């Protein structure tokens, strides 16, 4: 089938320059989401640090660490965000091990480990992330909050959404985040005596540390391109 395809009509490959030119889009307005963000700002007041609306896509709201639980309760009560989708955390520190493609016999390269937060900003390394959805209007919202660098502890939202229980247990064992008020922070996946927090960026993926990743040869350099980091190891 590969061989019989007409050439020219379908060309899956093109230079990167072609796609970047077409990404310039017109400014869109999303009245529903803008109105929702305005309403949330009124409800939560000073608890809101920053908001972001991507038209036709999603809402991001960052609240203060202290108001993490109460803000979510208020959003559930006042704006009927009653469907708990997920809770997780993000470690914004770039991994000192890169993507695990270093040759273990060579000295480790120096990497940029400056923390840059994502949408709606942030001042800490770890951030909480919760997604709630209104089960009637089906409008979703992503709520973020900073996790203090010194204690790595936030309030538990188990009292607001009972379903957050397991998600917080997962975040606790994977990121080492403490949840004040959680009834039972046992490990879900890992053995009881496991040391370290696997999803933190500074936790090395040991399989990649001891042996070079063979999959790197999958990425072929572009003809004429000068993408040095994609060169396969000799």
């Amino acid at each position, binding site marked *: *089938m*590969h061989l019989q*395809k007409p050439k020219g*009509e*379908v060309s*899956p*490959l*093109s*230079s*990167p320059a*072609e*796609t970047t030119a077409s*990404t310039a889009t017109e400014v869109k307005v999303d009245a*529903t989401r803008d109105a929702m963000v305005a309403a949330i700002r009124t409800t939560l007041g000073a608890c809101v640090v920053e908001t972001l609306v991507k038209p*036709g*896509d*999603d809402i*991001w709201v960052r609240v203060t660490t202290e108001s993490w639980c109460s803000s979510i309760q208020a959003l559930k009560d006042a704006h*009927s965000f*009653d*469907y*708990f*989708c*997920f809770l*997780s955390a*993000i*470690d914004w520190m*770039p991994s000192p091990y890169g*993507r*695990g493609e270093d040759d273990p016999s060579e000295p480790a390269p120096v990497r940029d480990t400056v923390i840059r937060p*994502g*949408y709606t900003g942030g001042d800490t390394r770890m951030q909480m*992330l919760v*997604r709630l959805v209104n*089960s*009637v*209007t*089906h409008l979703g919202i*992503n709520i973020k909050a900073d996790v203090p660098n010194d204690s790595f502890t936030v309030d538990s939202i188990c009292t607001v*959404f*009972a*379903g957050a*229980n*397991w*998600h917080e247990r997962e975040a606790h064992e*994977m990121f080492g985040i403490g949840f004040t008020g959680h009834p039972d922070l046992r490990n*879900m*996946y890992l053995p009881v005596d496991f040391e370290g927090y696997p*999803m933190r960026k500074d936790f090395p*993926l040991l399989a*990649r540390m001891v042996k070079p*990743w063979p*999959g790197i040869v*999958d*990425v*072929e350099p*572009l003809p004429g*391109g000068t*993408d040095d980091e*994609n060169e396969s190891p000799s």
Partner: protein
Amino acid sequence: MTILNDPVPAKLGNRQQLSYIASQAADARLNVELETEGMTLNIGPQHPATHGTLRIIARLDGEQVVWAEPSCGYMHRGYEKLTEVRTFPQVTSLVNRIDWLGSFANEVPFILAAEKLMNVEAPPRAQWIRTILFELSRIANVSLFLGDLGVQMGAITPVFLAFRDREYVLNLIESATGGRFHPNFDRIGGLKDDLPAGWIDETKVVMKKLRNFCDEIETLLFGNEIFQSRTRGIGVIPRDVALQYGLSGANLRASGVDWDLRRDQTIPLAYDKVDFKVWTHPDGDSFARCWIRLQETREATKIVDQLLDGIPSGPVMAKVPKIIKVPEGEAWVSTENPLGEMGYYVVSRGDLGPFRVKIRSASFNNISITPWLLRGVYVPDIITILASLYFILGDIDR
């Protein structure tokens, strides 16, 4: 976006009242310490009713469960960590293994999230074929559930019918993608390949067979008196509890929430081109959940039939660079997978691979309700309730 639900929780029905009374009785035993010589029952991790390696620890008082807790992690593979050291195109082969009965459906939301960040949209033909394969994996997945349901209650016949008819669907998936269980067929910007010759006619024949299978199961199993008495009024989940625990898919619709991500969100798939019914059930018990899945399999065959009739021509791949670098940003995409809402929160740093991927799998939320749900039920009902919640172990542990 339409407003379809009644936001006020419905009054408790008879069945819900009975279930509520049972759980209250279990609580009372614990609180008043009327508990007699209780025992701890360990189910699994190797048990035929656990579909893999789920272990359930149940504290019993007589025949009644007073406390139960599933113990996960026997199949944790750390996909969220592994995605951070893969390139974007490589991730699909990982996420294929999350829900292994409907693998193609796992790839789609991730690819859509990457496409959203790249501002690329697949050509119409690719979108239609994606939707067809998506529904085929739903049929393959849920038809096995319908057969397996009988086994949990001692009926052996349905599972043979299910394996027989699922094979037709797997053959279709194999002939289109090359993989029976793990297609790895979806690409950023489209699909790996076009459909083979004669595939459309073959699929229509199979869809007819699958509708017959649904009829067969309905008369054989759903009309069965034993099946009904084992599932009706058992494991009732009220609407607000289902929402609180983030139940999704058939489990949520069985509790009366009219919400289907295929219909209720704008997504670059061909669902807006077809006409299908979203079934809901007011009871929220085990029977309702099984019944919804049966109806969904029927609807899925109809969706596939409609899509096959109107499939547009054209390329199956958009213009994307050979080395895919996804621009910086964050994106959330979820789709209505066979097990429920499956979504990916993808954070990209303009690199070859994702910076962070949060995999929101349906079974994790669906099974997190079990400590609440199993309180007060009788031991044989544990098996039927777990079967009706329908989980895949790879989808819980990831």
